[in-house]
């Protein structure tokens, strides 16, 4: 389903087994609401991605399949230069495939913090899953009604021993669990990057942020936008889709 892709793209997927040590029950409920939406559902989506830099801008198209919160396969379809490049995620493990080299590369953990496909999303943004509930303390710090929806601002502070580099994160969630904004702060509490919803719409029968932009705040004019053109939810996906073989064989159906 759509949300689960959004999830992957925003490190927002949350585990069902999460036993929250968080201390604000309302904040936990809101975040868990998002979990319920993404639980064990498959999705197919077509997206366009725009990478913007001060002196250039590049657009590409991609297709993505997800299943549950663990499995995802993302493949570029345009431009021709990048077509076929693909990323497979299976639990915490990730592989990439480049048809020009005809090689599958298992991503070492040292690379997970690096940018994915030259964008402003890191591999971690794609692969991190349930951390918000397990590794953070969640607090509801603000509540407002905007355009008929209640919006909740939640502060997520990582536990002291959490495998999280951020100082804190702030999430802005709507009462229908649409993510409006997520800001990542460094440990000096300076905002480092911000994920924001640019358009909220309905696709494939669900309402979610159909256009999202990840903005690097320490580098001016650096952002990457993901925009959904097609989406389908609760579809049947062959088990073989999320395998290294499928990654390499370049299947797109």
């Amino acid at each position, binding site marked *: 389903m759509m949300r689960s892709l959004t999830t992957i793209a925003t490190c927002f997927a949350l585990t069902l087994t999460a036993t929250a040590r968080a201390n604000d029950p309302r904040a936990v409920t809101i975040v868990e609401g998002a979990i319920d939406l993404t639980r064990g559902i498959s999705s197919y989506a077509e997206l366009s991605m725009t990478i913007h830099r001060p002196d250039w801008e590049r657009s590409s198209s991609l297709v993505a399949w997800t299943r549950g919160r663990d499995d995802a396969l993302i493949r570029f379809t345009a431009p021709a230069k990048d077509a076929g490049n693909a990323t497979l995620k299976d639990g*915490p493990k990730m592989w990439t495939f480049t048809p020009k080299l005809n090689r599958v590369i298992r991503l*070492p*953990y*040292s*690379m*997970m*913090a*690096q940018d994915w496909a030259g964008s402003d999303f890191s591999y971690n943004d794609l692969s991190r899953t349930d951390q918000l509930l397990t590794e953070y303390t969640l607090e509801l710090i603000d509540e407002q009604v905007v355009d008929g929806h209640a919006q909740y601002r939640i502060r997520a502070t*990582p*536990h*002291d*021993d*959490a*495998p*999280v*580099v*951020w*100082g804190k994160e702030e999430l802005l969630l709507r009462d229908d669990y649409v993510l409006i904004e997520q800001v*990542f702060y*460094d*440990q000096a509490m300076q905002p*480092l990057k911000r994920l924001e919803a640019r358009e909220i719409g309905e696709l494939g029968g669900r309402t979610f942020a159909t256009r999202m932009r990840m903005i690097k705040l320490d580098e001016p004019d650096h952002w990457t936008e993901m925009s959904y053109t097609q989406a389908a939810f609760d579809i049947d996906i062959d088990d073989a889709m999320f395998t290294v073989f499928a990654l390499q064989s370049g299947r797109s159906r």
Partner: protein
Amino acid sequence: MKMPLILLLQLGWRNLWRQRRRNFMLLAAILVAVGGVVLINSLIRGFQYDMMEDAVENLTGHVKVLAPGYRDDPSIVQGFELADGWQPSVPTAELEGWTRRVRVPAVVMSERETRGLNLVGIDPADERDLSFLGTVAMSGERLRDADDSHIVLGRELLTQLDTKVGRRVVVITQGADGLNREAGFRVIGAFDAEGTALEKAFAFTGRTALQRLLDTDAVTEISVRLTDDAHSAEASAELARELPSLQVMDWRQLEPLAAAMFEYSDAAIFVWFLIVMIALAFGLVNTLITAVMERVREFGMLRAIGMRPGQIVLQVLVESTLVMLLGLGGGVVLGMGLVAYFADGIDLSAWAQGVEMAGLRSVLVPRLMAEDVVLVTTLSLVLGLLGSAYPAWRAVSVKPLDALRRGT
């Protein structure tokens, strides 16, 4: 007739004074050469022993015990467990200290950067006499004990990661079951080693804290430091007997580059010394030949009044030996004076970058070794005698009559 040696010495000594300027020049040349050789030798020795100590302190120790596969696959899977209360069976008098460590490859991440390094779980108390950690400059705090779950990084790494003491970094490494472990560690201190290589290569945390993260009781190495490198072979053999299933290696095997440089320095000292001394010997030969040729008439006269050729040879040798002895004595004193003058070390920090690249410390302290001085003096004397044999032979090869007939 037999001439007493004392008379030859007297004659030689007076002859030296007949050519003051020339002999002073010769003396000065020997003085400078010997003094220079003594100083340079002790600088090379200083460099050599610095290198050995660095190699040993660089978490190596004189002798190290590893699991057999660890060098090919340095992970916790290649660890081993030690019985409680285990002690290395090295005589206490020869043992400076020992410790066990857990050393695993890891990835360290900050908000902005990611770096790979060796994460080492240590017993901070043990490291004090054992490795560079005992003496290294630190900002922030040191690890308190083996259970301390904070992390200490190198200063250079801190800069690269764009983080600070007090911040949290994320460490990713492989656990004993082969699966990955991730944990946040708070940085409590940064060490400032000489040279950035160590600063980038190692991060430290408490040993038992790291074992907890990796789910293991195993360690990956035992490191033993001895009071003197001379005991290394013996201690290695002893440890190999005690721990037959493990691999025992000394620092020469673990740091082959440093060991090769160490051997090379020995050769370098000798070669350097030979070159200087042979050059000096030619100078000596040259001066003596001139001196001898000037005195052909004198030697002819001495022969004519009954001095034996052998005694003339002996006299020339006595003269050159006197100069050599004076030069050597003065040269050694000069060299020792120079070494004493530089005893605080020569500050190379103006060339810090190049020096660090060459693996040198930024302060080079000369190390005067008695055997080097003995080598310099005896070899110089031998070379001096050999060098003056030819002029001496020239002195007696002229027939007395011809010699007398020559002018002057």
